[in-house]
């Protein structure tokens, strides 16, 4: 793993993080501002796009919080927001692809009515992993939002990364021992 050995390297990462996040923040802000300002943009399709942009905005905010994550509380907030932003971004992209598939093969003129339901489901789904981490941590498991060693401990994510996979594999192994067929 790339562990950085000088203050200069860390400074470069902070500068890259700052500049790229600033560009993203400005562009996302402009899109959301135009959406609210111009009523003709409030179509179902652009609602999906703006929802995706909002998810990415949440992710951008988590990256900006990395400048203050020396405090464990901020680190937990950053990790939680990062997890929610990433999950909801992926969820919205899947929804956009599904809507396009569904509309092409089985056209529903009133599909826009499903938007509130989609928002609710996405909100629940995108919060599940982060909530799982919190509940697991409270119940004494060795998991939490901590600085990520793969990014030289600069950004807070779920640690250890392989916790979920390994626990899943171990549970499956136990089950397979108990129910061999």
């Amino acid at each position: 793993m790339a562990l950085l050995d000088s203050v200069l390297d860390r400074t470069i990462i902070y500068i890259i993080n700052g500049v790229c996040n600033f560009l993203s923040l400005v562009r996302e802000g402009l899109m959301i501002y135009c959406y609210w300002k111009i009523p003709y943009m409030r179509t179902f399709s652009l609602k999906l796009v703006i929802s995706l942009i909002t998810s990415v905005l949440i992710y951008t905010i988590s990256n900006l919080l990395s400048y203050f994550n020396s405090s464990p509380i901020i680190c937990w907030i950053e990790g939680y927001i990062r997890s929610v932003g990433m999950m909801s971004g992926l969820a919205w992209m899947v929804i956009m692809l599904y809507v396009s598939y569904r509309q092409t093969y089985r056209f529903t003129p009133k599909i826009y009515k499903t938007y509130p339901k989609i928002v609710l489901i996405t909100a629940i789904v995108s919060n599940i992993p982060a909530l799982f981490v919190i509940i697991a941590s409270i119940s004494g498991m060795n998991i939490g939002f901590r600085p990520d060693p793969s990014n030289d401990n600069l950004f807070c994510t779920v640690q250890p990364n392989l916790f979920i996979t390994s626990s899943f594999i171990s549970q499956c192994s136990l089950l397979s021992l108990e129910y061999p067929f």
Partner: protein
Amino acid sequence: MKENVPGINTNAYTKLISYPLVLLMLFLVPALNRFSSSPILLYTSIALTRLEGFIVALIFGANQFRIIRGYWRIKEEGEVVETDIDDITAGFRGDVGRWGSNFNSVVEDLKTASGFD
């Protein structure tokens, strides 16, 4: 494709497919970073993931600029502007898409040509 099949908007397909490809790149570079000690790869992965919002906005932003342009035209000339993305959720159908007509007739033509009823 746009030229051959009037009911289908290729621009919309391109936009829709380009974002998963961007996401793949955004996940692939940090994944490579885990197997390498190169600082350049680390910088690239951080820059790419932080630019995600900018890239998404670039992909879908063209529609927004078209609407803003159309917004002023609506005020002046009464023109209604639809977007590629509208075509996606409308199912690429000509009656609501920008490319004119007959998604269904294209399907019928394809059925006839293939001998499938």
